[in-house]
C-alpha cells in the first residue's frame, strides 16, 4: 500500500526519515526472523538493505507519472521557449531589413 504522512511543524524531512527508517528496519528484521522464506538470499537482501526514504508529496503522491514525465516536459518547455525566441528574433530582423 501507499503510505504518506504530515510532518509536525518544525520537523524536517530528514529528521522524520531518520526516525522512521529505524522503525522500518526493525520491522523488517522482525518479519525476517519469523518468515518461512528467511533462508532465501533475496528475502534477506530485502530485509537488510531496504531503506525508508521520505519524498516530498506537496504536489501529490507519486505514482510514477511525475517521475516519468517531469524531465521530458521541462525539456519540451525549454525547446518551445527557444523556438519562440528564435522566431521573434528572426521576425524583428526581417522587419528591420
Amino acid at each position: 500500500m501507499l503510505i504518506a504522512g504530515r510532518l509536525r511543524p518544525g520537523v524536517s524531512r530528514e529528521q522524520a526519515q531518520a526516525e522512521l527508517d529505524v522503525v522500518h528496519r526493525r520491522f523488517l528484521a522482525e518479519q525476517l526472523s519469523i518468515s518461512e522464506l528467511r533462508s532465501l538470499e533475496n528475502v534477506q537482501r530485502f530485509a537488510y538493505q531496504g531503506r525508508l526514504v521520505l519524498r516530498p508529496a506537496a504536489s501529490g503522491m507519486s505514482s510514477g507519472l511525475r517521475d516519468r514525465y517531469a524531465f521530458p516536459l521541462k525539456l519540451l518547455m525549454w525547446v518551445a521557449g527557444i523556438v519562440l525566441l528564435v522566431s521573434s528574433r528572426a521576425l524583428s530582423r526581417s522587419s528591420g531589413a
Partner: protein
Amino acid sequence: MEDARATWGWTCLERFCQDLRYSARMLRRNPGFALAAVLSLALGIGANTAIFSLLNAVVLRLLPVADPRQLVQFTNTLPLWETGGSGRELYSYPELERFQAQSKTLSGIFGGTRVGRMNVGFHGTSGIAQGDASSDNFFSVLEITPQYGRFFSAGEDRAGASVAVFRLGC
C-alpha cells in the same frame, strides 16, 4: 525646456507611439509578412502555453490542502532498485500501524491502495467507479472538509465498516 521634457519621461512614450504607428504602416504595406509574423508568433505562444499548462498540472501545482509542503510520501529503496521511485507499494498494513504507533515526528500517517473499478449503485441507478481504499485518517491528515455529509470517523477502516466517499464531477 527641452531637457526638462526629456527627463520627465514623456518623450519616451511619444517615441513609442511613433514606433507603433510606423510598424502598423509597414505591416499594412506588406500583408504577407504581417500574416507570417502573426502566425508564427501565435504558434509559438500557443505551444508555450499548452506545454506550460501540462507541466503545471503534472509537476508544479501543489495539492489544494492546508500546508501541502508538510506532506511526505514513504518510499522503500533497495540498492538494486534505486532507479526512479520504485518500491512505493512495498508497505503492509501492519507496518502502517507500527509507524502510526511509534512516530513522533509526523502528526499523522495514512495509507491507501487502489482497489480498481467497482460497481456502484446509488438511488436506483448504477455505474462503474474507480475506487481506492484508505485508512480512516486519510482526510483528517490531509485536512480536507467534505462538501456534503462527513468523511470517515475513527475505526471505520475495519472489516465490516461500509462508508464510502464520492467525488462529484469528473
